[in-house]
Structures are given as C-alpha cells and as structure tokens.
C-alpha cells in the first residue's frame, strides 16, 4: 500500500512544482504549444485505482496548477474531466485477455501502441476542454483545436521520453 502511495504523492508535488515554476514560462510554437506535464500524475495512476479517489487527486492537482496560472477552476475542471474519462478509455482499450492486476499504464507493461492510444486520447480531451474553458468564447474554437493538437503532441513526446528514461532505470 505504502509502495503505491509514496510515488503518487512524490509525483503530485514534484510535477506540480515543475509545472508551476518552470513549464509555465515555456514559449513554444508562438503560444500555441503548451506543455501540460502535470497530467502525468493522473495518467500514471494504477489501472484499477478507485475512480472517485482519482477525481479527488485530479481536483486538488488542478487547483494547485490554477494557483500558479491565476486561473481559478480552469485547470481543476480539466483535470477532473481527465480523471473521469480515464476509466472509459481504459475500458475501450482492454486487451483480449483483460488487464492483469499488476498492469501499470506504461509502455513496458502494456506496449507502445496501447500507451500511445491511451495518452493521445486523454491528452487531447484534457487540452481541448482546458483551452475551450480558458477562452470561454466559441469564436476561438479553431484556435483551441490547434492549441489542443499541438499541446497534445508536445506533452506526448515529453511523456514518452520520461517513460523511456524511468523504464530504463527500473531495469538496471
């Protein structure tokens, strides 16, 4: 149990600080690409973790990010959407012989193609919700789609690199 919780807590505060103090000032693709790395906390939660607990974690994570970004409620709302839709995506992507209890949502456990579909779907839902809410104006719709697409790609690449680094480390 402790082994499950400690990394989650560490990731929560570590990624929150990285997001709020470093990634907040990143300027890629002229304001269209945002690196929302903090969602990794939710993406890496165990596959069978309780859904309500997921949403609670996501909510407080989002509020924390909102404090740095001065956007009360916006990141929190998007993070809760992400946590709520995660089990749906996991269910759609169920492998032929179901998940093992020890399965983790990462490449070494479920393979690259599963992980890509899982991450792209969730990242896109999260960022589209986030930017739509942030603009709060439908005339920005196509801007938001573009932003969501670029941010998804940017975040995905970073997540893949991190996954590769840490999976590599675990084997050694």
């Amino acid at each position, binding site marked *: 149990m402790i082994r499950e919780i400690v990394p989650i807590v560490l990731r929560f505060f570590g990624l929150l*600080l990285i997001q*709020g*103090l470093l990634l*907040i*000032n*990143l*300027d890629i693709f*002229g*304001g269209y690409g*945002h690196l929302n790395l903090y969602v990794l906390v939710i993406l890496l939660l165990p596959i069978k973790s309780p*859904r*309500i607990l997921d*949403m609670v974690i996501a*909510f407080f994570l*989002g*509020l924390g990010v*909102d*404090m*740095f*970004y*001065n*956007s*009360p*409620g*916006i990141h*929190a*709302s998007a993070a*809760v*959407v992400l946590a*709520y839709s995660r089990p749906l995506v996991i269910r759609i992507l169920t492998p032929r012989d179901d998940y093992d209890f020890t399965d983790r949502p990462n490449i070494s456990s479920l393979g690259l193609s599963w992980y890509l579909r899982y991450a792209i779907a969730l990242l896109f839902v999260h960022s589209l919700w986030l*930017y739509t*809410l*942030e*603009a*709060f104006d439908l005339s*920005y719709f196509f*801007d938001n789609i573009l932003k969501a697409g670029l941010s998804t790609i940017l975040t995905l690449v970073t997540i893949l690199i991190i996954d590769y680094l840490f999976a590599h480390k675990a084997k050694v």
Partner: protein
Amino acid sequence: MRDFLRFLDSYKYLITFLIFQLFCFSLILRESVFQRTIVLSSINSVTGAAFEQRDKLYSYFSLRDANDILKEENILLMDNRPISYQKVDKEYAIIDDTLYAKRYTFQYAEVLNSTKTEIDNYVTLNKGSLHGVERNMGVLSGMRLMGRVEKVTEHYSLVVPIIHRNFKVSARLPMTGHFGVLSWKGGDYRYAFLNEIPKEAKVKVGMPVVTRGAGSLFPPGIEIGTISEVELEEGSDFYTLTIALGVDMARLNTVLLVKDRMSSEIDSLDQFITQ
C-alpha cells in the same frame, strides 16, 4: 429508498464528477464577475513565496537584461532633465514651478513571474499593500506601458498586463490627435489592436501610439508602441490598427508602479456619473 440508494450507487461517478465541475465552474464564473479570489491566485503566501525563491535563483541570469532596461530608462530621464535643455529666449521661456502640483508618484517593483503565452496573461510583483501598492495603479516597464494592478496582498501584487483580454486603455496618436481603445485578443504577445480611430485620420505604419491619460491609471503621453499594420474594412468608418507593443513581455525584470494622487477624486467623479 432502496431504489434511490441503488440509483445513487449506479451513478455515483457521474454525480461526483458533476459536483466537482459545479464547484470549478462557480470558481470560474465568480472570478470573471467579481475578481476577488486571492487564495487561488499566484499572490497568495504559498505560490508567492515559491516564485520569490525562484526569482532569487533567476535574477542572477537576468542581470544583463535588467541593466539594459535601466540604461534605457536613464537615457529617457536624462533627456527630460533641465540640463539637456537650453533656454530659447530669456524673455519668453518662463517656467514657474509653483504652477505645477505633483500628481504622479513612482515606485519600483521586481517581477516574480510573468506569462505571455496564455490567452489571459498575468504578472506577479514582489510589492504589496505593505509597500503602498493599491489596486488600479499603472505599471510601466522600460518607461513603456505594461499593465495595471488588479489584486494586492500584503507582500505581493497581481498585474493585468496589456496582453490580457480584460485590459483596455485609452490610446492616442500624437501625430494626428485622434484617440481610440487599445485591447488584446490573444495570440502573439508582441502585438495589440487599436480600434475606434476614424477613417478620416491620416494614419501611417510606424506612427507612435501613446496613452491618452484619460481615467486615472497612467499619465498622458506614456509610450505604448508603434502602428505596424493599417486595416480598413469595406464600409467601416473606423480603422483596425495593429500595434507593435513597445513593452517587451519576454524580458520583464523591474517595473515602475505609477500612483495617481488624483485617482480617488476622479473615481468619485466617475461614480457620480454612473449614479
């Protein structure tokens, strides 16, 4: 009752989700209506202190930029000092100091954090109400218009810069005398828009744009930027001008806070009008 419990049980995830969303949306809407939430902004004691610690680390790397900006400001100040002027004619150039009352006072603050790629950007400063910062004070960077103070806590203040959709300022074209409203719509942080300049005005690319000084935020004549694109829609009586902003949002270090000592008087007049 058992049916109700079963109903609750089968929809418990959706219900939790909706409760969270309700809470988030109430925060978002209340924020845009009242602008009062302090706890969930970057000027609360936790995030403010975090940014301050980061600033201690960062400030060493931006010393050169800070120095450049200070040099620019010094040149501007030297330009305006009496020693750089020569009396044209002893008989006609009379300056009587007692005719002038000091209206604006200035104060420095350090930028702890600033964003430029969001759709609504913010700047966090390291001076708060303890240092005499008040809501609606104007903020200049390198003697150019940067924003206005939106929220203040004891030690920190939050600035709404030009590149925020809620920022509007009355701007003037000193070469033609026309004035309009400057605003930002998201996108590139180096450009803003100036509307309501009538098509009779002879505008040209490269013309300077300055503050009009209406209202109580900025002294008149503060540099905003230059016209970079002139657009006149068919059938419209007004130009849409793209303004290249003078302030460099990518390298903010030290900013100047402007306090208008007449602001309460002007505000009370405004109140009188709205009543």
